[in-house]
């Protein structure tokens, strides 16, 4: 059920400002792809174009195509809501719905997408998703308590459970560990290893060790100067990017000789 993603000649704008210029990439199904690069280079922006979250910001728009198994998600007859049902997302800061219990947070996607689900079915998916996010054992006795009462790492895993509960094909993660301590980070990284057997995963990270640990392929984004649009410098096997990158700029960034 995981799908392949192709970005083709993407130009991404915020209003008139060109934030990312001419980016093309291919992401294989059932793999982890990491986006790395300095702040402001547009890696999160590119990530958000993959599930059409970019256009939620007023004035933001995209030129080019993103194909999901060959289907352009920016085609005229495609509803962004359907795209987001297929391509889930986990954000930088854990953002469980504060008015909802742990159970309702996980069930939120299914309930709010419409379509009737009976209680038994819902219970099953909630448990399965929480197990999938490696959180079930910690919360099974307090499913009706508020999701916001959990620790930061637990909240992030709750958000992952919420995202996988709607059974997406692809999971986008925007710096999912940057607000977490090392132990919670490890828990999420382990989880990513399990999730990639089912989903196509794209993860944005500032932590190069993390990219090296979890991903099979890595894309390095950069911007040539402040105010210039970001660009994709190179994308290759993670091992190659970190040991023997083709581009000088990648090597400089990886080895810390940046800027």
């Amino acid at each position: 059920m995981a799908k392949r993603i192709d970005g083709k000649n993407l130009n991404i704008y915020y209003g008139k400002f060109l934030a990312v210029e001419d980016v093309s990439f291919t992401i294989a199904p059932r793999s982890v792809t990491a986006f790395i690069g300095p702040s402001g280079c547009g890696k999160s922006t590119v990530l958000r174009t993959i599930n059409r979250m970019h256009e939620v910001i007023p004035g933001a728009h995209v030129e080019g195509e993103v194909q999901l198994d060959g289907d352009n998600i920016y085609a005229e007859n495609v509803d962004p809501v359907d795209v987001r049902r297929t391509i889930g997302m986990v954000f930088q800061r854990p953002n469980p719905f504060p008015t909802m219990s742990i159970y309702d947070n996980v069930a939120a996607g299914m309930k709010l997408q419409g379509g009737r689900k009976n209680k038994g079915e819902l219970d099953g998916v909630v448990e399965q998703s929480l197990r999938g996010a490696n959180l079930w054992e910690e919360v099974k006795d307090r499913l009706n308590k508020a999701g916001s009462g959990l620790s930061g790492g637990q909240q992030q895993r709750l958000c992952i459970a919420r995202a996988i509960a709607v059974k997406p094909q692809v999971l986008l993660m925007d710096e999912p560990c940057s607000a977490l301590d090392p132990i919670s980070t490890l828990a999420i990284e382990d989880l990513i290893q399990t999730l990639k057997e089912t989903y196509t995963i794209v993860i944005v990270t500032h932590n190069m060790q993390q990219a090296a640990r979890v991903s099979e392929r890595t894309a390095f984004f950069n911007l040539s100067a402040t105010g210039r649009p970001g660009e994709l410098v190179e994308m290759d096997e993670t091992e190659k990017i970190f040991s023997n990158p083709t581009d000088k700029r990648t090597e400089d960034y990886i080895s810390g000789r940046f800027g």
Partner: protein
Amino acid sequence: MTATVTAPPPTLAATTSGRRKFKNNLATVLVTSSFVVAVIPLVWLLYTVISRGLHAITRDGWFTRSQRDITYKDPGGGAYHAILGTFEQVLLCSIISIPIAILVGVYLVEYGRGWLARTTTFMVDILTGIPSIVAALFIYAVFVTAFGGSRAGWLVSLALVMLMIPVIVRTTEEMLKLVPNELREASYALGVPKWKTILRIVLPTAFTGILTGIVLGIARVAGETAPLLILVGYSPNTNGNLFNGFQGSLPGMINDQVANIGNTRVLVNGRPVSIHYAADRMWGAALTLIIIVMALNVIARLIARRNKVTN
């Protein structure tokens, strides 16, 4: 071996921290005394109204009888007609105002762009500043002068709508702005359409605040007097019909009792003593109004608490 320790310059440290402490104390005193100054009138007002009004409302029949056939010379009677009138007028006003105001607030925060949003904000600002008597005259001009209707309770409700809407729009707006964008994005990312995100995620998150706004709005209009005088008059008799005839109301009753306050002399232990029956009833009506607004406040808080998920 002796270690040489250089002590920090003591005078400098002493003076800066001394000055800082002084400023801190000064600010604390200012803030605390301002609080006390602000609270004094409130406590005083509550004390006055309760001490003068309590025996009127605890008397038999206050909540069940009207002021029918009772003049300033007579003791007794109740505020039933006034409570009923105020309740009906405010209820109709709320039924019209609350949905409109919340939808306007949602529009301004979640959808509003460009000239329509700017114009709406501007209009709400103007409405906020409209004196109640102007709203009442407007309704009178439209429904009585132009359409030839007669004065009745529902016209009061319409005038109150103009006063209530801006209050609720403003609070709804503020509360919706407080909902973090991350929650909206989290919902969109689950493939939830925008309208459902607003209905099921954004509004419930802002629910408590909006509820407070509604109570504020009700409190604002429940004590309005000008629209009553212009649009429905006052009747000491019970009239539950919003669409026909004069109607009692709590502010109307206060006003009526003040207007006919005259004193009555009665003999107590053989000596004449002045008694103000009307004044008692005036304080009673004022206390009743305060109790109703406070009760609404408590109810709102209880509802808010019931809707909260516990940690």
